């Protein structure tokens, strides 16, 4: 922790994050530079270089749309600090990110979900390294609802909404969770992702935990066979989910927390979700950190862990690590060094509030950073 705070102080004087610019520039946003610098060789002490190689190098990142805004900010800031390294980013979805990392076509595949055991058995050279703590909120478009009111929902009710058995917002099951709230008779329009998505994995995991019927009939995954519900819409990416919901009164949508600001700006409502103990929570820094804290000591060495519906009484139920999927086998020593240096930077310097605050992510707990470094050290 002390190291991280020292790094935080060091970067406090660094160039402010150009998040908006990074987001708007889209895939492959960071500019290339040919400037060659000769940074002093240094190491974190655990076999991880703190600085990149002298020669110009380009690292490519693709995958999670949820991680995309943060990755763009990191790419810009890192390039500013280490001009020899250029990082290209692309919002293509977690599934594409994993595929690209597996195939070696990207240095980093960004994913909201850990690698499955099948992926790891197929490609044992892959690592999933947490970069930050994320969460997923449920948004809705109920224009008649007074400002400041957050509808309470739980997994069982959401499962029924997505299964088409709850068709209107004033359904007794929703009303029972929201006594005193005047619910509209609007038709429920469930929105889901059309692409293979870590967000879908997280959301359907939550539904499967709370609804035995959903688990028995649908299950969970990055893609699932969504029940045929009249009016249901499939959207591409988190941005598509927000804009689709904004355009559809009565919608309910699961969206990654890095899009919460945008969703709120689009006047979408934010639901309080029931956790394991039946407490209804919003995804705040406190509730997200509380949820993650209960998993820290149990996190295995390869950092594959589901934190959905954890035991924290005041924890938000849908939290996850945002993962960098990387291969231990890199095309060369310089590429390996640059990748290691950047990943270490991302989980230390890059976990500062000035970066994470923009996308509402939370920093990795100290012991998890140590586990990440142990994994990063394997890259060669």
């Amino acid at each position, binding site marked *: 922790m002390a190291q991280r705070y020292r790094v935080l102080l060091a970067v406090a004087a660094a160039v402010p994050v150009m998040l908006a610019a990074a987001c708007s520039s889209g895939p492959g946003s960071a500019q290339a530079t040919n400037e060659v610098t000769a940074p002093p060789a240094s190491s974190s002490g655990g076999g991880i270089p703190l600085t990149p190689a002298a020669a110009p190098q380009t690292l490519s990142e693709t995958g999670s749309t949820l991680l995309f805004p943060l990755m763009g900010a990191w790419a810009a800031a890192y390039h500013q600090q280490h001009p020899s390294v250029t990082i290209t980013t692309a919002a293509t979805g977690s599934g594409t990110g994993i595929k690209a990392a597996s195939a070696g076509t990207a240095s980093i595949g960004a994913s909201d*979900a*850990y690698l*499955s055991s099948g992926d790891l*058995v197929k490609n044992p050279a892959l690592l999933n390294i947490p970069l930050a703590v994320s969460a997923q909120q449920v948004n809705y478009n109920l224009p008649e609802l007074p400002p400041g009111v957050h509808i309470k929902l739980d997994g069982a009710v959401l499962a029924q909404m997505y299964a088409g058995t709850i068709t209107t917002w004033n359904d007794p099951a929703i009303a029972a969770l929201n006594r005193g709230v005047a619910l509209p008779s609007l038709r429920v329009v469930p929105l889901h992702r059309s692409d293979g998505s870590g967000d879908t994995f997280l959301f359907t*995991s939550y539904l499967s935990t709370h609804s035995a019927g959903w688990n028995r009939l649908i299950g969970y995954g*990055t893609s699932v066979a969504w029940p045929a519900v009249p009016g249901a819409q499939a959207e591409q990416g988190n941005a598509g989910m927000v804009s689709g919901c904004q355009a559809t009164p009565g919608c309910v949508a699961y969206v990654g927390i890095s899009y919460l600001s945008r969703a709120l700006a689009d006047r979408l409502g934010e639901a309080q979700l029931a956790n*394991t103990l039946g407490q209804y929570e919003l995804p705040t820094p406190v509730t997200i950190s509380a949820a993650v804290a209960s998993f820290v000591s*149990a996190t*295995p060495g390869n950092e594959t862990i589901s934190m959905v519906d954890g035991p924290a009484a005041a924890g938000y139920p849908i939290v996850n690590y945002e993962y960098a999927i990387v291969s231990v086998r890199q095309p060369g020593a310089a590429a390996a060094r640059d990748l290691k240096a950047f990943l270490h930077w991302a989980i230390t310097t890059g976990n500062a509030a000035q970066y994470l605050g923009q996308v509402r992510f939370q920093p990795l707990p100290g012991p998890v950073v140590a586990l990440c470094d142990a994994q990063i050290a394997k890259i060669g």
Partner: protein
Amino acid sequence: MTVRSASPGSPAASQPAGQHPAGAAHAASPGPAAPRRRAGRRLRSAATPTRLRVLMIGLLLAALAWGAAGAWTVAQHASAARDVVTTSEPLSLSAQQMYRSLSDADVTATTAFLAGPDVPLAARQRYQADIAQAATDLSALKDAAAPGSGRTLPAGLTTVSTALPVYTGYVAQAQTEYALGYLLTGGSFMQVASEVMHLTLLPAARAVYGQENAGLTAASARATGLPWIAVVLVLAIGIGVVLYRVQRWLWRHSHRVVNYGLVTATAVLAAGALWLAVAFVVARADLQRGVGHGSAPAETLAQAAIDTQQIRGDEILNLISRSGDATFVADFGSVRAQLGPGPGTLLTNAAGSSPAGAGTLWAAAAARDVQPWYAVNDQVYRLDAQARYAQETRLVIGSGPGSSATGFGRVEADLSRAIAADQVIFHADATAGSDAFSGLEAGIIVAALLMALCCAWGLSVRLAEYR
């Protein structure tokens, strides 16, 4: 007991050979080569007792050398045959069981988790039995390679020893999370456990099985190998020829028709060599029959069983892998092509082994039962491609007649019975082959000592005539 033959007109008829009367030597007609002949005669005359002594020492050494070579060779073959029966075959079986137990443990644990939070007691017991069996086999394999055993510790065993507690630790963690109601966290720990199983434990266990199976093949080859037994038999023939020539020489020089000592030694040598040859031929035939009719088909069936486990394991992995894009449908196709049935496939080869017996009948049953299981697998992968996980889960872990679990259980049971039947054949034949060497080592040593004594006796009697 030397019998003196009545050789009319011979000067040696009443006198030991070599001690020719001086007059007889002088009676030879002189000529140009006379001095040389006289020298040769003196040499021969003076060398006869020495020759007898040299022959006696030589035959004693030859008899003892043959005995030593024969006993060593028999010991080698008997040891190898014993090794086949008491060590290599059980170790190969242990390695095979260890692989299957580990694979089944993972399939059982994962299936139980997929079934829901209330893990059935039967599944829990089966998992525990699998782990206990794997630990027992691991212990047996390690003990067999203990220092002083002369066996090398397979590298994979250390890996299995190290990774097994890691695996069971993750499964225990998964069970704890499940019991506390954190199903998804439990599921992710189960995935980590499966990764340890598929990436570390099963490859190591498979390497150990390959090594132990190679050890069994090598022990069988040592037990049935020809070179040393051929050397010993050639040596016996050589010694027999020497004995014959010595006896002929004695007859010519002493006109004793039979030297009982040397004749007895020859007979003992012939009997020993015959016993050795017959025992070896019988043992070799038994062991080769055991390998051909038992071990080889059992090895084919073991490979088929491993393939079956892989199809089932991949199917489960495919089912629990919801967060990536991995699919095992291609692996299913390639393993299925190797497993069969079909020309040149494992199941067809095992079912067509000769002679037909219980093993081939069960192998044929497996070849028949695998087809409906394949059809279920095809359906499983179709559902997976459509992301219809709930139906896929029911098909994979359900207990009904049309489920993959049922189909897998049937094929696995067929293969287990076939392997057991072939192992009974192998064990019986290998034991018979090993038994063929019973007493032979001691017999060869006794025969060699008897030969030596008889040679010493036969020649010492002749030597005594010169004193």
